[in-house]
């Protein structure tokens, strides 16, 4: 191959069209991947187990050697007590691992919640506490999805599931609030690198939770609480990015003219940019959903829907406002004015959430109207049926009356004829 062609092929690898990778995606994907790797990492237990086995063996030899029979006899009650402690404790461990998959309403769910509380209490650092809270928040979101998918045979069971969903959403709110406050607290006391790492985890995980909640119910007619918690999750996600931005600016101030950030300011800026772009994409997709829902509601020909034209206009205004803010935020992201962009993203998210809530209300009102109409139609049908039955009865009765009259006339005729015969 000619050197020129070889050189050109080599140059190709840095060209985006030839598959040069987007570095922001690369680091984001790495964070997600590492989270999964760490979650599935087996405990590094090879050496301690060997040590423990060795220790047990040496004690066994010392205590139960033939010359120490008396000691062994004396130790028997102690061993029984020890086993009485070990056996329940061992079963506790297996119960805890089984409880991980449980959902509210199941016997082991209480164990799961207690274990999580213990984990939080024992967390060695603020960053591991944050990581645990985000992990538990993700678990709560999964539980909401599982509960929603649970079939209910009776109305009572359905009601019970709804209660569990509400309870789980409350727990999710608690976790997210904890994530937010712990991260803010950490950003004030810990080093920038650690804070950034924790904020990254929160950003990635909250986006995932947001997606799970969105998939669980687009506009949450059955569970309006989901909307509330989704707002909190969005807030936590934006807060995480805001904290990343702050760590960069703080380091710039601390270091004065020369910026010394190990990861490189450019890479972090790219990461912030990509994260904000993702948030804007999510907001745009939610706006699309609201538009679709609004169209669907306006196509329903009910008198109430027509009367609610003002509500429609309000949502339309909110959509327009959200779109305008998303556009402005996009421009701020492009120009790397991140603080401004974050404010805009917050504004856009709030506008989208308002529009979603309004559409949810309209949908609910429309649905109620449709239900009322169905009931009314049924009533009209019943009335119509009743009318037909009455007419039939009247018709039938009419026939009888006619027949009776004819008979009576005959009798009268006969009576009239009899004296004549006499």
């Amino acid at each position, binding site marked *: 191959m000619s050197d020129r062609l070889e050189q050109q092929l080599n140059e190709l690898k840095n060209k985006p069209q*030839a*598959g040069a*990778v987007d570095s922001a995606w690369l680091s984001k*994907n790495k964070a997600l991947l590492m989270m999964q790797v760490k979650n599935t990492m087996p405990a590094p237990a090879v050496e301690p187990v060997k040590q423990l086995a060795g220790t047990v063996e040496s004690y066994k030899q010392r205590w139960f050697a033939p010359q120490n029979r008396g000691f062994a006899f004396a130790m028997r009650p102690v061993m029984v007590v020890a086993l009485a402690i070990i056996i329940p404790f061992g079963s506790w461990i297996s119960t805890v691992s089984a409880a991980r998959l449980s959902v509210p309403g199941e016997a082991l769910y209480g164990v799961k919640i207690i274990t999580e509380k213990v984990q939080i209490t024992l967390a060695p650092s603020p960053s591991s506490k944050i990581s645990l809270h985000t992990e538990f928040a993700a678990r709560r979101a999964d539980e909401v999805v599982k509960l929603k998918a649970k079939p209910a045979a009776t109305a009572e069971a359905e009601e019970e599931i709804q209660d569990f969903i509400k309870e789980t959403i409350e727990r999710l709110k608690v976790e997210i609030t904890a994530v937010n406050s712990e991260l803010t607290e950490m950003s004030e006391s810990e080093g920038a690198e650690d804070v950034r790492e924790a904020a990254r985890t929160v950003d990635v995980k909250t986006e995932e939770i947001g997606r799970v909640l969105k998939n669980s119910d687009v506009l949450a007619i059955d569970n309006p609480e989901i909307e509330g918690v989704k707002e909190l999750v969005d807030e936590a996600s934006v807060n995480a990015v805001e904290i990343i931005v702050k760590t960069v600016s703080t380091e710039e101030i601390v270091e004065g003219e020369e910026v010394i950030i190990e990861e490189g300011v450019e890479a972090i800026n790219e990461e912030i940019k990509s994260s904000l772009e993702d948030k804007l994409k999510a907001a745009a997709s939610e706006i699309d959903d609201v538009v679709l829902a609004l169209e669907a509601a306006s196509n329903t020909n009910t008198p109430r829907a027509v009367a609610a034209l003002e509500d429609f206009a309000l949502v339309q205004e909110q959509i327009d406002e959200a779109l305008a803010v998303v556009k402005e935020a996009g421009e701020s992201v492009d120009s790397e004015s991140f603080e401004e962009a974050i404010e805009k993203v917050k504004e856009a998210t709030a506008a989208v959430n308002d529009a979603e809530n309004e559409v949810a209300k309209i949908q609910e009102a429309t649905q109620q109207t449709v239900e009322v109409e169905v009931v009314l139609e049924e009533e009209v049908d019943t009335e119509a049926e009743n009318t037909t039955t009455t007419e039939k009865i009247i018709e039938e009765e009419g026939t009888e009356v006619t027949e009776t009259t004819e008979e009576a006339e005959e009798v009268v005729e006969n009576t009239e004829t009899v004296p004549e015969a006499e």
Partner: protein
Amino acid sequence: MKGNNKQLVLKLQFNNDPEAFSELYDRLAQPIYRFIYFKVGSKADAQDLTSEVFLKAWAAIRERKDGVLNFRAFVYRIARNIVVDFYRKKRDITSIDTIEDDRFVTGSNIEKIANNQELTVVLKAVRSLKDEYRELIIFRYLDEMSYKEIAEIVNKSHVAVRVTMHRAVKTLKKHLGHDVPKQP
């Protein structure tokens, strides 16, 4: 983290060191993404499949009791299989001509590429090669792999790879309009 890929895999497998996996990801994510991107032609699909490759690699390493001798070849083999599965599921193979122009790429970067007409022509020529040839060109000239390593990935002999590579280069030159001397 220092050490070659083999040492990192050993650290990962026997010391459960997540940092080793992180380092392996840093070394290989970019070439694996590029390799997949050339095959599927879409940025979004390439990103999804790249994530899948590393998750599968992680799962495979955890399950394997024997060490992975050549991690790079191992990950590329996973990538090849994943791309095959991807097309099997899709059953609608993207034609080389329809490779999407990502909106992300159409910014300032693409303008730079447009200025460099020659590179664009080379890129088009590489894309127009059949899959077997394109794969070898990427391995050899973009990822700078040895014939031995390529042979390990594509599961062919060293000689067979050399012969195919020769044909691939010849075809590429033909597509570029370079003079190719006729074989006697």
